[in-house]
C-alpha cells in the first residue's frame, strides 16, 4: 500500500546550510556520555584527555563545583561533598532510602547536604548534563538545538519527569526521552536493513538499573513488544555486596564515610579485575584500618552475584511471556556490568544464544540516542526508521476500598489514551479525589502514587447518577496527563503528573536565574531562539498548508490566516520572546480548525491508499 505523505515539499527541512546539531545523551548512574550523528557516522565526544565516559559524579566544594573525574578525586577526602549515583534517587521518595547506609541525606526532603548547600538529585543530574552540553558545544563549535536523553525503560513517570527537569535546568531542549534498550537496538540496527523480521532481546545492566526489552525489528521498524526490569538494581549493588562481604570476612571495624567510599572503590576494582582473572588482591593500606590487603576470588564474586543475576533472569522470562514469544533470534548486551563473565554465561543460557557485543556496551546507548536525535531535530524526512515504544508499568487509579482500577496496561504502545467512566459512591456527593497510581499490584499501597487531584462542582445527585469520565493520556516520552470531566455539567479538572519529590516550575525558573552559566543575557538569547524556532515552524508550516489544502477554507478564512502570518512575521524580527510566543499562540489557535481538517483529509487519503503522485497529478 502506498500512502500519501503528509509532509509537503515546502515544509521539508532545509538540508543545506541550516543543518541542526542535536545530540544523544546517555545519563548513566555511574558514567554519562554524549554523542552526535553527522549524517554518516556517530561520534562519541571525548574530553581533552581522550576519555569518552564522564563519571556521573559531582563535587560541591565551598568555593567550586566540579564534574566527572575531577569530582571523583574528592570522594575519599570529602565524601559528603562528592555526590555519585544520584540517578538512583531521581524522582524517588526519601522513605525509600531511609535505612540505606550508602546514601547520606539531609534531615528532611531528598537532598544531599554539601558545603555548597543542599543539592537535590535533579540538580546533581543537571550539573552532569551541563558538563556534557558544554563538551558537545565545544566539539560542534555552536549551540545545540536539542537532545535525546536516554532513560531506563523501567523508569516510572516520576523518574522520567525528574530527568526532564534536570535537562531543563541544564538548558537543554529535550527532543525525546528514549528508553535505553531501544536506543541500543537502534545503534545495532544502524548497519543492517533486515528484510525478514527478527526478534531481539536487549539485556541492559548498568551501574544502578536493570532493563530487559524484547523487540521485533523489520524493515526500518523497531517495535518494542515488552519491557521489564528493576530501576534499582545494578553494578552498584555488586560493589556493596562485596564491601559487606569484606566487612564480615575481615571483621573490619565501623567505617567512616570516607573509608566506606574507598572500600567501594576497591570493590569496583576487584570486580573489574575478575573479568579476566581468578583472584584479585587489593592493597588496602590507604584504608588505615589495620587491614593491609583485601582478597576476592572469582568464586566469592560469583556467589555474591548469583541472587542479583537470578532477579534479572526472572524479569527476562516474564518479558518473554509478556511479548508472547518463546525465544529470540539474538541477544544484545548493554551496560558495563555485562562484562562480568558470570552474567554473560547466565544470559547465554537463559536465551539459548551467545550474546552479541560487537559495539562497546558502555557507548551503544549514546550512539543510538544520537541517531534518533538527528531524525527528531528534523534533519531527515520520511522513510526513516520508526520506533514504537511501550510503557513499562500499568497506570490506574484508586477506587473504593483502596483497590486499583487499571486504565492503561503495561506494555501498551505509546502514545496512548484511554477513558473510563466512574460515578459517585454517596448521595449528594459534590466532589471526588482522583488518585493516580502506577504498578501491577491490586492494592493502592503496593503501587507507586503519582498524583492526586480533586474534581469539584458536581451537582448533588443520588449515588451512581453522576458520570465522570477520567482520561489518561501518555505521550511519546512516556509522560502521563490525566483529566476528569463530569459529563452532564462539564465540570473538569486535569493534571500533568509532576514528580512529588522534584522541583516545581517556579523553583526551576529561580535556579535558572541563579545559575552562573545562565546569566540573564544567555537566558534571553536561549528563550528568543526557542520562541523564533517555534514561530518560524508555524509560519512555514501554515504557508505550505494553505498552498496545498487552501481549498478547505473560504477566501475570508484564508485572508484571516494570512493576516496572522504577516503579523507573526513582523514580530519575529523583534527581540521580544514573550511577544513572539503570544503571537505564535494566537495564530496557532486561529489555525487549529484548519489543521484538524487537513489531518482528517490526510487520514482519509491514507485509508483509501491514495498515493501522493495521484494528488500531485491533479494539482499539476
Amino acid at each position, binding site marked *: *500500500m502506498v*500512502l500519501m*505523505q*503528509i*509532509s509537503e515539499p515546502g515544509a521539508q527541512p532545509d538540508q543545506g546550510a541550516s543543518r541542526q546539531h542535536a545530540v544523544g545523551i546517555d545519563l548513566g548512574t555511574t558514567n554519562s556520555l554524549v554523542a552526535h550523528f553527522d549524517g554518516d557516522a556517530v561520534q562519541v565526544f571525548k574530553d581533552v584527555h581522550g576519555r569518552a565516559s564522564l563519571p556521573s559524579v559531582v563535587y560541591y566544594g565551598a568555593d567550586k563545583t566540579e564534574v566527572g573525574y575531577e569530582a571523583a578525586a574528592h570522594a575519599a577526602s570529602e565524601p559528603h561533598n562528592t555526590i555519585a549515583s544520584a540517578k538512583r534517587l531521581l524522582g524517588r521518595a526519601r522513605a525509600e532510602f531511609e535505612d540505606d547506609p550508602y546514601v547520606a541525606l539531609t534531615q528532611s526532603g531528598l537532598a544531599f547536604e554539601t558545603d555548597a548547600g543542599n543539592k537535590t538529585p535533579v540538580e546533581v543530574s543537571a550539573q552532569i548534563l551541563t558538563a556534557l552540553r558544554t563538551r558537545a558545544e565545544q566539539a560542534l563549535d555552536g549551540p545545540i538545538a536539542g537532545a535525546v536523553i536516554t532513560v531506563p525503560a523501567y523508569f516510572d513517570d516520576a523518574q522520567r519527569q525528574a530527568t526532564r527537569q534536570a535537562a531543563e535546568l541544564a538548558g537543554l531542549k529535550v*527532543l*525525546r526521552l528514549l528508553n535505553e534498550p531501544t536506543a541500543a537496538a537502534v545503534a545495532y540496527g544502524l548497519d543492517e536493513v533486515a528484510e525478514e523480521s527478527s526478534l531481539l532481546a536487549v539485556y541492559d545492566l548498568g551501574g544502578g538499573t536493570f532493563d530487559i526489552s524484547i523487540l521485533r525489528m523489520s524493515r526500518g521498524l523497531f517495535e518494542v513488544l515488552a519491557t521489564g526490569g528493576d530501576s534499582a538494581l545494578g553494578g552498584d549493588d555488586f560493589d556493596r555486596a562485596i564491601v559487606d562481604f569484606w566487612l564480615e570476612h575481615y571483621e573490619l571495624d565501623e567505617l567512616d564515610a570516607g573509608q566506606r567510599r574507598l572500600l567501594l572503590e576497591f570493590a569496583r576494582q576487584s570486580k573489574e579485575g575478575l573479568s579476566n582473572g581468578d583472584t584479585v588482591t587489593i592493597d588496602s593500606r590507604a584504608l588505615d584500618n589495620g587491614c593491609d590487603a583485601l582478597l576476592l576470588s572469582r568464586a566469592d564474586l560469583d556467589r555474591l552475584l548469583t541472587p542479583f543475576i537470578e532477579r534479572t533472569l526472572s524479569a527476562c*522470562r516474564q518479558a518473554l*511471556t509478556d511479548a508472547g514469544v518463546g525465544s529470540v533470534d539474538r541477544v544484545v548486551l548493554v551496560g558495563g556490568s555485562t562484562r562480568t563473565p558470570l552474567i554473560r554465561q547466565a544470559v547465554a543460557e537463559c536465551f539459548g544464544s551467545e550474546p552479541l557485543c560487537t559495539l562497546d556496551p558502555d557507548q551503544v546507548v549514546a550512539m543510538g540516542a544520537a541517531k534518533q536525535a538527528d*531524525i*527528531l*531535530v*528534523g534533519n531527515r524526512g*520520511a522513510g526513516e526508521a*520508526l520506533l514504537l515504544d511501550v510503557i513499562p508499568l500499568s497506570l490506574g487509579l*484508586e*477506587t*473504593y476500598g483502596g483497590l486499583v*482500577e487499571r486504565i492503561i496496561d503495561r506494555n501498551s*504502545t*505509546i502514545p*496512548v*489514551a484511554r*477513558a*473510563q*467512566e*466512574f*460515578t*459517585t*459512591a*454517596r448521595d449528594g*456527593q*459534590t*466532589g*471526588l*479525589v*482522583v*488518585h493516580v497510581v502506577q504498578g501491577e499490584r491490586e492494592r493502592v499501597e503496593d503501587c507507586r502514587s503519582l498524583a492526586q487531584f*480533586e474534581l*469539584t462542582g458536581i451537582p448533588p445527585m443520588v449515588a*451512581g447518577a453522576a*458520570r*465522570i*469520565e477520567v482520561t489518561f*493520556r501518555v*505521550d*511519546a516520552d512516556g509522560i502521563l496527563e490525566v483529566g476528569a470531566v463530569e459529563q452532564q455539567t462539564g465540570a473538569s479538572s486535569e493534571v500533568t503528573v509532576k514528580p512529588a519529590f522534584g522541583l516545581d516550575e517556579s523553583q526551576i525558573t529561580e535556579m535558572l536565574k541563579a545559575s552562573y552559566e545562565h546569566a540573564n543575557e544567555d537566558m534571553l538569547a536561549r528563550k528568543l531562539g526557542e520562541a523564533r524556532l*517555534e514561530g518560524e*515552524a508555524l509560519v512555514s*508550516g*501554515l504557508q505550505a498548508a494553505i498552498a496545498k489544502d487552501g481549498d478547505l477554507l473560504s477566501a475570508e478564512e484564508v485572508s484571516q490566516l494570512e493576516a496572522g502570518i504577516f503579523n507573526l512575521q513582523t514580530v519575529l524580527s523583534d527581540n521580544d520572546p514573550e511577544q513572539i510566543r503570544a503571537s505564535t499562540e494566537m495564530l*496557532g489557535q486561529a*489555525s*487549529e480548525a484548519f*489543521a*484538524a481538517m487537513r*489531518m482528517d483529509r*490526510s487520514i482519509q487519503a*491514507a*485509508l483509501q491508499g491514495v498515493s501522493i503522485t495521484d494528488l500531485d497529478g491533479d494539482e499539476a
Partner: protein
Amino acid sequence: MLPESAAAAKASRSELEPAMSAPAREYFALFQLKPVFRIDRAALTRSYHALLDQFHPDRFAGKPQVEQRLAAQFCADVNTGFRVLSDDVSRAEYLLSRAPINLKEAEREGVGSDFLMTQIALRERLESMQPAEVEAREALEQEINRHYATAVEQFEAATSDEHWQNAARHWQEMCYLSKLLEAARVGSR
C-alpha cells in the same frame, strides 16, 4: 470546596458505563478490514504499521505544535484500535458494542448454567493441581483450549446469523475461558 472527606469521596467504578461503549473511531474501517470476527491478522498489522509510519509523533518533529498534538491524538486512537482488534475477546466485545443489542442487559443474563458448571469444574481441577503434575496440567490446558475454541466458533456463527443475544453469551464464555487459560499458563510456569 469538597464537603466529602477525602476517604469517603474516593471514586468508585460505575457499573453502568464501560469506556468502550462509545469508541471514538470505527476501528475496522481504520484498518481497512471488514467488520467481522475473523480478520486477516497480517492485513491488520500492515495497516497498523502504515498508519503509524505516517502519523507517529516522530514524523511531526519540527512541525507546528497544533499538528503535533493532532497527530499524537490520532496515533493514540490507532494504538487503542490495534489493541482492541488484535485480541479475540476484546474484538468480540467491540463487535457486540456496535451491534443492535444492550450489552449490559445481556451481561446480566449471563452464561447458561451448564457452561457455568463446566467452568467451575475446570477451575476446581486446576486449583487442586500440584505444580509437579506437569502432564496433567498440560492436558487440562489443552482441554480448556478446546472449550475456548468451541466458544469462539459459536460466537462467530452467532454473529454471522446476527443472533446477538447468543453471541453475547458466547462472548462471556470466551471471557471466562481465556481467564482460566491464563491462570493455567501462569500456574505451569
